[in-house]
């Protein structure tokens, strides 16, 4: 079984190698992604929940003297994230159009992002957790720069420099963490780090936590390190935005849950006020910024920044309910934002513009597209029946239970739900309803393939919405009680 976990990383890389040597890009990449999805389902349901802990382990020695090994393994939370990654990968490759320039490179870039993020989730060694994530940096730069729309060059530069700097700060934080371990115990293995922290050997300073928070935070677009995100998503081609906003961004949160939560309990407690302040910035400030957007892609880009605030709120509540809610919300938001970007890409391909002032009444001629976008909208604003709702409710419960300091953030967050209803419903109305604009009378409906690619994202969202235990029980195996 441990071979399956490695395969999920190797398959996309092998497929990209095949494409580079001349295989058909679309068929090869989509085939690899579908097999990967099957593998991740096999792993998801093959995980022994009663036994818990890390399973499917495998290890290669890299720098044994420094305690650095490439260790792969998975617990419930890992498998939830890998499932998210494979679902979004299939959907993204499915909606990927045949491009004129560098068609092979387009698919290779997507496969690299996918392999990198799966590798990051499956790594038990902190250095490899970091390294795998960085595999996405150049593909993102290429995807936005070559095939992006709008002010793509500026967006690509901004995202690359921002993410490069953010991840380097993160790397410094990780090295500092490594050095703070008393020599003789030095390791980067998450399991051993947890043990060291539990046995009281490890006393990393709050400063290191701050480095990690800034580093991971800029990858997750935590306010005020968010400004790369909306533009990058708005300008990126739809499949890249889906993978980036849906999956890659969750890496930062995943890292905080994996590293900060168990290793820095005191620092997280002490600096919780700061985190809460940033969370309020994420929800309230970015929320209002989102309301003022005049284009669909920018609205969705900003909304994905805003929703990170809820997940951070769940983390900041520092209790099981809140963090479980955050985990569920990571899964839910990943799927819903990927669906939104996929549909956004479909609309852009039909109309060539996403300005609200120019769009309107598209649902008349493209009813299925409209219906699916309606579902994505409802999911994104947290309507009951979608996993987003269950996640948000858990976050609110967890935060409320965390004590009086959380009262204001919770009120802000609840108000944030209203804000997101305003901008999402307005976006839905502006694009799909109202009088039909003459230019769009002949807009075609969504194609059959793309339709199923979106349903592939929305269906699990509803399954997890009606039966959140499916995700919660899995994710719960990773969380301390």
């Amino acid at each position: 079984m441990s071979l399956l976990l490695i395969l999920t990383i190797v398959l996309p890389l092998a497929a990209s190698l095949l494409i580079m040597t001349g295989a058909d890009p679309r068929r090869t990449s989509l085939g690899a992604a579908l097999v990967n999805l099957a593998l991740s389902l096999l792993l998801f349901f093959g995980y022994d929940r009663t036994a818990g802990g890390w399973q499917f382990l495998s290890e290669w020695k890299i720098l044994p003297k420094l305690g650095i090994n490439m260790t792969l393994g998975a617990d419930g939370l890992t498998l939830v994230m890998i499932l998210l990654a494979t679902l979004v990968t299939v959907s993204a490759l499915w909606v990927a159009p045949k491009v004129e320039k560098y068609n092979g490179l387009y698919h290779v870039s997507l496969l690299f992002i996918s392999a990198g993020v799966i590798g990051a989730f499956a790594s038990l060694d902190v250095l490899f957790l970091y390294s795998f994530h960085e595999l996405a940096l150049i593909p993102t730069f290429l995807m936005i720069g070559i095939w992006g729309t709008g002010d793509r060059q500026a967006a690509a530069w901004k995202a690359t420099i921002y993410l490069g700097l953010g991840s380097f700060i993160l790397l410094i934080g990780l090295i500092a963490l490594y050095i703070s371990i008393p020599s003789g115990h030095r390791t980067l293995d998450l399991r051993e780090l947890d043990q060291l922290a539990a046995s009281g050997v490890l006393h990393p300073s709050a400063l290191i936590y701050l480095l990690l928070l800034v580093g991971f935070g800029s990858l997750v677009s935590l306010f005020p390190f968010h400004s790369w995100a909306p533009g990058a998503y708005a300008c990126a081609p739809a499949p890249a935005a889906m993978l980036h906003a849906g999956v890659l961004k969750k890496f930062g949160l995943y890292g905080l849950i994996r590293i900060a939560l168990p290793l820095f309990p005191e620092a997280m407690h002490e600096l919780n006020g700061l985190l809460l302040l940033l969370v309020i910035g994420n929800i309230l400030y970015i929320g209002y910024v989102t309301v003022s957007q005049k284009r669909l892609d920018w609205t969705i880009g900003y909304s994905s920044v805003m929703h990170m605030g809820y997940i951070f709120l769940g983390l900041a509540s520092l209790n099981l309910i809140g963090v479980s809610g955050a985990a569920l919300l990571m899964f839910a938001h990943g799927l819903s934002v990927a669906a939104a970007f996929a549909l956004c890409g479909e609309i852009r391909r039909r109309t060539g513009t996403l300005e609200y002032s120019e769009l309107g009444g598209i649902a008349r001629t493209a009813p299925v597209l409209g219906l699916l976008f309606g579902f994505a909208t409802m999911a994104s604003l947290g309507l009951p029946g979608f996993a987003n709702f269950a996640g948000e409710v858990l976050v609110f419960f967890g935060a409320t239970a965390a004590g009086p300091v959380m009262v204001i953030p919770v009120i802000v967050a609840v108000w944030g739900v209203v804000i997101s209803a305003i901008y999402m419903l307005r976006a839905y109305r502006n694009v799909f309803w109202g009088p039909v604009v003459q230019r769009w009378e002949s807009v075609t409906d969504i194609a059959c393939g793309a339709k199923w690619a979106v349903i592939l994202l929305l269906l699990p969202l509803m399954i997890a919405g009606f039966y959140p235990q499916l995700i919660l029980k899995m994710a719960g195996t990773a969380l301390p009680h």
Partner: protein
Amino acid sequence: MNTLYLEIAVVVLGILLLMVEAYSSSANKARLAWVGAIGLFGVLILSFLPQHAPAPGTASAAFVTSDLLSVFFVRLILAATIVFLLTVPSFFPVLRRSLPAEREGGGLGEFAILPIFVCAGLMWMVSAVDFIMIFVSLELATITLYILATYLRQNTASLESGTKFLILGALSTGFIVYGISWLFGTTGTTNLLALPSAIAALPEAAVTPLLFGIGMILVALSFKISAFPFQFWVPDVYQGAPTPVTSYLSVASKAAGFVVLIRLLGALWAIPAVSHQLHAVITLLAALTLIFGNFAAIPQTNMKRLLGYSSVAHAGYLLMAVASLASKMAVPAIGFYFAGYLAMTMLSFVVLQVVSEATGGDEISRFNGLGRRSPLLAGAMLLAAASLAGIPFTAGFIGKLLVFEVALKQGHYGLVMLGCVTVAAGFYYYFKVIRAMYWQQPAEETPIAVPGALKFLIAVLGAAIIAFGVYPAPILAALR
């Protein structure tokens, strides 16, 4: 085997090839490069046999050593020279155009043979433990490099490059001789191994002249490793010199300079009388070199100048590790950094050589649309740029990781913070090349053909970048 035999073998190889060259026909000059490369490869294999320094008490024992550091860098310099020689035959068309054509093929052979003498000089330099030896081997290497830098005699840029290199090289020679004489005057020795005990016995008043001497030597070494403020020759010389020479200059000659710096500082680092000042100077040097190299690279539009500034920037990261010399991981970190640096820098120069031959220029804009004209070259350059910028799973990342680790361990928080900013700047200027290759439209669509030898080099260097980045343990083990 006595370690001196390696250098002797290299010199003999060079002399033999010179004699053969005199009688070889003009069509066969490329063979000289192949034979030279194979010969050096043989020496590289010999270097893996058990080595020992000359027996204590013999005359040569006072001059050369055979420790882990020297063995490692001897191999590194041999590898760099082999890469150089393999690129030479594909460079012949450029040479033919820019050499006075009195005789068909004249001057081509020497271009393939002179690097062997540079190689011998640099090999001696990294094994040397006496300043007399360091000076002599340095001169052997640099005088030969002056000739190579100015080789394109009908190209004014190359002449300018060679002249600047000669004048500033001579200046730095002056500094090092002057410094050595002050050092000898105060301590009575030129031997690095004897230096610590000689300094310990010095009276208080002799410390200032001693520091002055060390300072002069540091100035000269800063020229060699292109540390700020003695880096100003780098962009001009790099731009004008023939591409294979630039590549060699930025790797091998810089590596030798760093080894001498490590040996000098290693001898002085723990001596209370001078350590304080040295720590401060090296830290400052590292900081300034990082800032200058990285920020001056940002506006560059010429690929050779960009790589020149990038080599200054990398000297900054290496100096970060030198400033942390007290850590026992510092020297392995530097060695590893250089192994990776060799692969990624020489790979980018190989690509540059082909691109500038095909497009007729060295500007970054010549790389426009390379992804379409030659996916192989663009992919190789992408890999090299990723490694130079420090993306994981490449040699450059592990190098930076090790350097930042030792720097943090030694408490150089300021340098580390500065390093974060300069790494981000690095992302910008290396990605500028990636942007040209993939975002921009090519000026023409014709595919670019890559000579077979260079294809082989691209494959080997590319594989090395990834192999070092995924499995660095063997390289590190060679230095511990």
